């Protein structure tokens, strides 16, 4: 189901701090990860951790994400994730939810563009019930019309509520332009017209085709032994079909470089979102990229963008750069908001910093500090059972070896100033920015004025 939609008022930037992306950081392994194969033949990653009487599992079906939505049924996979815990087997929606609630079991399904994923968290004392409910949800979801309607209504309300939010508007434009004519361009949360078209039969077909063992990846941790872990995995997943729909999708490079697009809105600030082609995780220059980005804009305070735009001049509350990695394309993003009349100056500063990091070696201190942060902060994302499960899943989704964390530090420490200039020159092409603006910026030359939001209606 869709949990509470928190009123926007409550949205804390705070959460960003705690929900670090899995692939962000790493240090030496006090995480002793084991790859196990169950008697039923399912391989998964496991960490024993008896700190608290809790068990957490993160799993995903690779390539089963929202990129599979038909254009006229955008939001189908998201709705599948909203409804898979809304009744299964003999339990209708309320009975299923009540069973979760009475045992304090957290079961959640999610859909990213690439993957369909789930998390299960339970007290050890309720583990049997938790496994039974997850098994039911995965193998015999009901997709009853009534709960499906409720989830559609909640999504429609979410979309209409979000239409007041500049950052949501910006995301619609960025997706549409950067991924033009590709499945990623669609609205994974559905549109006002597509959601009503989706039927229980659509969800059942999706479930049959995509919730299959050949796509399955699992991370399991907490208060359970290897044997218990293997039994749990077999119990939950063994009955799933071996295969389903063929894998689809092909790689592409970001679209619409060198375009400035504006959605006019009468608000005091302009939201700026800059997009450039990014870099793959398996690229030989991936580690140089990580260090370069830490220095350039992903590091918050101390990074050059934040120093120049916020700390020295007070032009913004925050400016950040980040890499978005998906299966078929990668983008490098810079985003910030600034008062409408300061837009031009902010863009000038961003371009100046791009040029600078390409042409002048970073300082010794910058290099040292960036490496220290990237290597030293990883343990901060291992402080709960659910976080550990999430790390186990994330490493596998990134196709990383089980000893990855052991080598990450040395790979980062090997990066040189020349490496940084090389990767900066490759990524930070200030003449080919896709720039998406929401607001009423002054002194802007636009190539495109967007009148109607794409993939909303």
């Amino acid at each position, binding site marked *: 189901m869709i949990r509470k939609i928190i009123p926007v008022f409550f949205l804390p930037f705070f959460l960003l701090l705690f929900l670090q992306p899995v692939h962000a950081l790493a240090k030496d392994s006090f995480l002793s990860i084991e790859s196990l194969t169950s008697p039923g033949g399912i391989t998964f990653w496991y960490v024993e951790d008896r*700190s608290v009487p809790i068990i957490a599992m993160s799993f995903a079906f690779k390539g089963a994400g929202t990129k599979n939505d038909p254009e006229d049924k955008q939001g189908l996979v998201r709705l599948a994730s909203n409804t898979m815990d809304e009744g299964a087997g003999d339990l209708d929606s309320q009975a299923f939810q009540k069973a979760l609630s009475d045992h304090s079991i957290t079961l959640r399904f999610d859909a990213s563009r690439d993957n369909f994923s789930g998390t299960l968290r339970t007290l050890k004392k309720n583990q049997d019930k938790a496994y039974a409910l997850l098994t039911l949800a995965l193998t015999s979801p009901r997709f009853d019309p009534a709960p499906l309607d409720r989830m559609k*209504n909640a999504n429609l309300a979410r979309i209409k509520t979000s239409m007041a939010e500049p950052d949501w508007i910006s995301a619609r434009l960025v997706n549409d332009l950067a991924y033009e004519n590709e499945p990623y361009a669609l609205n994974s949360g559905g549109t006002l017209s597509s959601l009503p078209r989706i039927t229980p039969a659509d969800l059942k077909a999706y479930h049959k085709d995509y919730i299959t063992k050949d796509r399955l990846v699992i991370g399991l941790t907490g208060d359970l032994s290897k044997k218990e872990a293997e039994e749990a995995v077999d119990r939950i997943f063994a009955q799933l079909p071996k295969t389903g729909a063929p894998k689809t999708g092909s790689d592409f490079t970001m679209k619409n470089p060198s375009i400035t697009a504006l959605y006019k809105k009468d608000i005091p600030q302009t939201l700026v979102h800059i997009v450039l082609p990014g870099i793959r995780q398996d690229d030989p220059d991936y580690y140089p990229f990580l260090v370069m980005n830490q220095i350039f804009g992903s590091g918050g305070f101390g990074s050059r963008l934040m120093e120049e735009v916020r700390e*020295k001049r007070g032009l913004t509350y925050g400016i950040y750069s980040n890499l978005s990695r998906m299966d078929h394309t990668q983008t490098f993003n810079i985003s910030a908001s600034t008062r409408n009349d300061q837009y031009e100056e902010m863009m000038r500063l961003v371009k100046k910093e791009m040029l600078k990091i390409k042409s002048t070696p970073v300082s010794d201190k910058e290099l040292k500090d960036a490496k220290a942060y990237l290597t030293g902060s990883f343990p901060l994302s291992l402080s709960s059972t659910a976080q550990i499960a999430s790390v186990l899943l994330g490493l596998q989704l990134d196709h990383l070896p089980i000893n990855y964390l052991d080598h990450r530090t040395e790979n980062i420490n090997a990066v040189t100033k020349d490496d940084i200039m090389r990767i900066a020159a490759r990524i930070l092409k200030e003449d080919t920015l896709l720039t998406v603006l929401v607001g009423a910026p002054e002194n802007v030359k636009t190539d495109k004025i967007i*009148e109607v939001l794409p993939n909303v*209606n």
Partner: protein
Amino acid sequence: MFRFLFLCSALLLLSCPAHAETVFNAKHFTLENGMDVVLIENHRVPIITHMIWYKVGAADEPSGQSGIAHFLEHLMFKGSGDLKPGEFSKTISALGGRDNAFTSQDYTAYFQMIAAEHLETVMKMEAGRMNGLKPPLSEVESEHKVVIEERRQNIENNPRRHFFETMQAALFPNHPYGTPVIGWMSEMQAMTWEQAYAFYDKWYAPNNAILVVSGDVTLEELKPLAEKIYGVLPRENVPVRKRNIIPPLKGEIKLTFESEDIHQRTITRMYRVPSHRTENRTDSLALELLTEILGGDSTTRLYKKLVVEDAKAATIQLSYDPASYDDSTLWLHATPLDNVSAEELEAAIDEILTDFIKKGPTEQELTEAQNRMENAAIFARDSVTGPAMAFGYTLATGGTIDDVEYWPDQIKLITTEQIQNVAERFLDPAQKGDGHMVTGYMFPKTTTNHKNSKNREAQ
């Protein structure tokens, strides 16, 4: 994002404190200068969360200086002791840590998450800015612009948040909670370094601060460090917090926001209710249970009746945060389905409330809610920063360590009658006329020639 306002504390950051016996087994001591120290040991990973909570927030600002508590929080990163502007965060980052701070109406907190071996370094830096704040004026100027951009970004760019701010102002007349933590724009623009320093000088002192450390450190290790680093700071005279009283009001307060930027009708109610400090403590515990029983999840009363059975609402939420120095707010937020009028949905909500007041919760509802909350307390232990937050906001708003540690036991003692009683006193639809509740309606405004009219559907 950095140095943000802390708009809502307990609700999102961790489920809840507590469980039978003690929940976290925290250790507590007080330094000679009056500074309280709380330690929650957790040796799972060699990291710590280190937090300093000052028992002062936006509600303690002088009249006409709204935003100064939060501005000061930003300036605390701009040079102190031996640290140059910005050096605090850069040092933490270069040690592989993260730091941040937040301001609420009642407290201002600074925290770092970092490898346990750096605890002493972090403590020294934090102690250094308790007395030694000295940002250069140029930095004060640029940071002044930053907080103004922060208000533009978080409030003025976003009509919904701007409306919630207006509702809050209506709910707390003559009381500082009616003034936003970030400040009113006109007063923010007039803020000065002298005002910020005066606020710092008046309120920032060891005897008005709480040190909370959670993670991989023992009491034997922490205590001598705390004595050596924080214990040497001099005790200061700190005023008693004094806030204006909300006068008795007449009339039902309803605000309507009709705008072309709004595309979804919503109904939001804010009820002014007791916090854990303002009335009998059992009132706030009963309100926590009431919130759980009526709005805990999709199987509890409001959702079950309004979304599942009667299909009147697309969403319904209820939330309540007991950790507040003065009265707190209980939120109800509902989205009517397109074929249901706001009046119809409100009438249905009121019917549920009236029935609840008349009959109270069932014993089964109470037991199930208590069990969920007891389990939530076990999950709360599965975190390093979560427990530190729980102690911080509880103590900084007038609660005690036992309030956190024995929360499940206290919850278990609450009866159906006590819950019925708080429902009747604070949520009774028949009592809407006494101004303890504000209802806010957001409605789309349809125009014929606006450029976006295609995006909007008829309501």
